């Protein structure tokens, strides 16, 4: 039972319910209007339309599951950080405080939404849409299990790795626009920093991903994971794995690389002038990106859903993604924030040569026929 067939059944059910009313109307209303309703029902039930609706249903299911994971990640972070810092974390709302995040989310709904008078209205409103939308869209490209990903009648999306990173790279653009549109000096600096940071970290990130692609010989997450059945790529491409981890922390803007929203110097960085639920969504979106980064790391380097068959494949995948996230939390709990010029130094002078070296290793391994 894979995601495609479940979505197909669900879509079938929904179309059946809708068509019951449409055909009913067609039976009730005489003449050409009734016939039009009949043909509308036929059109809805036709294979092409069903295929599109099924894919939409798949995306909805996958994103709902991924968002539940995101909520779990926030809970894990709060609990772990609390333990690192010698207190207990949330524990009143729900079991072990699991529902604290929902409570906090509801609180954001009650807050007033303030728009600065001098803000550029169109950009101000469109930037969060791009940021949040593109970030959530990443979740749709990452399959959680061999049968739990977006497929087209059982065929996985070709080039999903490329697609994921292409969508990842949209966000800095919207951050830059948002920082500019808010008409505030702090947000402007935050947006600029974000653009500079992304530019210098995209390259080593994609180079380390390229080495994985070279070894696996495919752009699809499913193929890359299947190719790691014998050995995780983190072992031969250890340098690449480290480069990837550092870059993905910078990419999802977490401490020590959270310069665009460095709260001590830039108040809240580029999100300063956004309030209410918009700000709440920004906070959630950061964790969406964090989850996406962890899941990509697990899929590309840690063997994805490969593991002993004592628990379902999907759980292996999630456990690995959570472990990567625990490393993120650990880093956040123990490191100060780095400075802008230092971050660029690190990106261009250290990570880029390392990523190059890693790519050479991958090519040599592939040429020698080891993989």
């Amino acid at each position, binding site marked *: 039972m894979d995601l495609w067939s479940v979505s197909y059944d669900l879509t079938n059910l929904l179309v059946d319910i809708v068509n019951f009313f449409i055909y009913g109307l067609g039976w009730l209303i005489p003449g050409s209007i009734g016939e039009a309703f009949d043909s509308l029902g036929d059109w809805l039930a036709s294979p092409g339309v069903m295929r599109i609706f099924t894919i939409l249903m798949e995306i909805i299911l996958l994103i709902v599951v991924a968002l539940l994971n995101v909520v779990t990640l926030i809970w894990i972070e709060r609990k772990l950080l609390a333990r690192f810092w*010698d207190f207990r974390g949330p524990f009143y709302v729900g079991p072990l405080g699991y529902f604290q995040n929902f409570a906090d989310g509801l609180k954001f709904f009650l807050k007033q939404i303030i728009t600065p008078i001098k803000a550029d209205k169109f950009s101000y409103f469109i930037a969060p849409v791009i940021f949040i939308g593109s970030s959530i869209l990443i979740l749709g490209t990452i399959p959680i299990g061999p049968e739990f990903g977006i497929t087209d009648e059982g065929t996985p999306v070709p080039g999903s790795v490329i697609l994921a990173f292409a969508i990842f790279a949209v966000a800095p653009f919207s951050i830059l626009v948002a920082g500019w549109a808010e008409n505030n000096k702090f947000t402007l*600096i935050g947006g600029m920093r974000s653009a500079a940071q992304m530019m210098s970290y995209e390259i080593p990130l994609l180079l380390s991903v390229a080495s994985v692609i070279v070894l696996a010989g495919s752009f699809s997450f499913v193929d890359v994971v299947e190719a790691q059945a014998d050995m995780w790529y983190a072992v031969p491409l250890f340098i690449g794995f480290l480069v990837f981890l550092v870059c993905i922390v910078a990419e999802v803007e977490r401490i020590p690389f*959270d310069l665009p929203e460095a709260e*001590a110097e830039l108040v809240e960085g580029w999100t300063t002038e956004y309030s209410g639920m918009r700000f709440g969504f920004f906070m959630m979106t950061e964790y969406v990106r964090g989850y996406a980064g962890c899941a990509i790391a697990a899929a590309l380097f840690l063997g994805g859903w490969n593991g002993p068959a004592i628990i379902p494949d999907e759980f292996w995948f999630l456990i690995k993604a959570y472990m990567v996230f625990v490393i993120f939390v650990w880093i956040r709990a*123990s490191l*100060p924030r*780095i*400075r802008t*010029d230092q971050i660029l130094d690190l990106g261009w002078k250290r990570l880029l040569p390392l990523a190059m070296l890693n790519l050479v290793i991958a090519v040599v391994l592939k040429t020698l026929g080891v993989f």
Partner: protein
Amino acid sequence: MAEMWINMGPQHPMTHGLWNLRVKVDGEVIVDAMPEIGYLHRGMEKIFENKNYTQIGPITDRLCYGSSITWNHLYCMTVENLIGVEVPERAKYIRVMAIEIQRIASHMMWLAAYAADIGLLAGFVLAMRDREIMVDLLQMLSGSRLTYNYSRIGGVAADLPPEFERDCLRAIDFFEKRIEEHETLYRDSKIFLMRSEGLGILSREDAINLGVTGPTLRASNVKYDVRKHNSYEVYDEMDFEVQCHSDCDVYGRYVVRMNEMRESCNIVRQALKKMPKGPVRVKTPMYAPEGDAIGRVEDPRGEGIMYVIGDGTDKPYRLKVRSPLFVTLSAAKKMLVGYKVADVVSIMGSIDVCMGETDK
């Protein structure tokens, strides 16, 4: 980007209080800086003129919420100089001990705020946790946790509570181990060194010319400490080193403060050991004579001076407070120009800003 002025404050996470730092930036580089203060002015010195000597005591606590015992003690010492009363020996030792405990608590609070400034939230939480040890000791002494009002004109409010000596020694021993733990979080962290070494350099000459005092001055390699050079209470009987650092930068200030906490632990131990038996307070007259008197102490943030003029009534004619940070803030431009915007928090955090005493 063209040059522009950025207002960091009065409501900004960097400021630790209510003040405004205007910096002129060229891209990310600072080309000019101008601190603006006065947002927290409460007219302290005018209030002093309208209260009698006993009533002023609790208000001096509010001069600095970070180290209220020091200011309270400075006030009492100044008025004692004016009246010409000799404090009992035991009270002097208790005062020295309380001041040093307060110094540790104050430096710990600085460490917490500074860690939060550079984005190290672990440092914030852990430093606040360990400051609690010292606050608990002061609570045993005085009954309150922030504004203690422990010193009185002519002594201290109360003798040590029973078993205080045992608890204090235990806490100090425990705390010395904790300082090592904190050091591992900073000294061994590459990123912390990148954020502190070579930043906010204030040369020896500049520091002296601008009148900077306290850890900031000692980090600029000037061996000056009021406790040593103009000893008050019983500091001349204590054996301690004045901590200096030759780096003149943010890291130097960090090292000076960490070592000062260790020295303070030693002083507390010595004070407890040498403390004689006897009364802790003498009776003093309500009316001060005509004349003036001055008191100088080493506050955790620098040299605090109070100057009082008595006119024969129960109220001072004038009580002038010399705040160390008011002077240190004037060195902001010297420390900031040439560095990045991101360094503003690191540099201004390193001088341990407390607006209460600056604006008075």
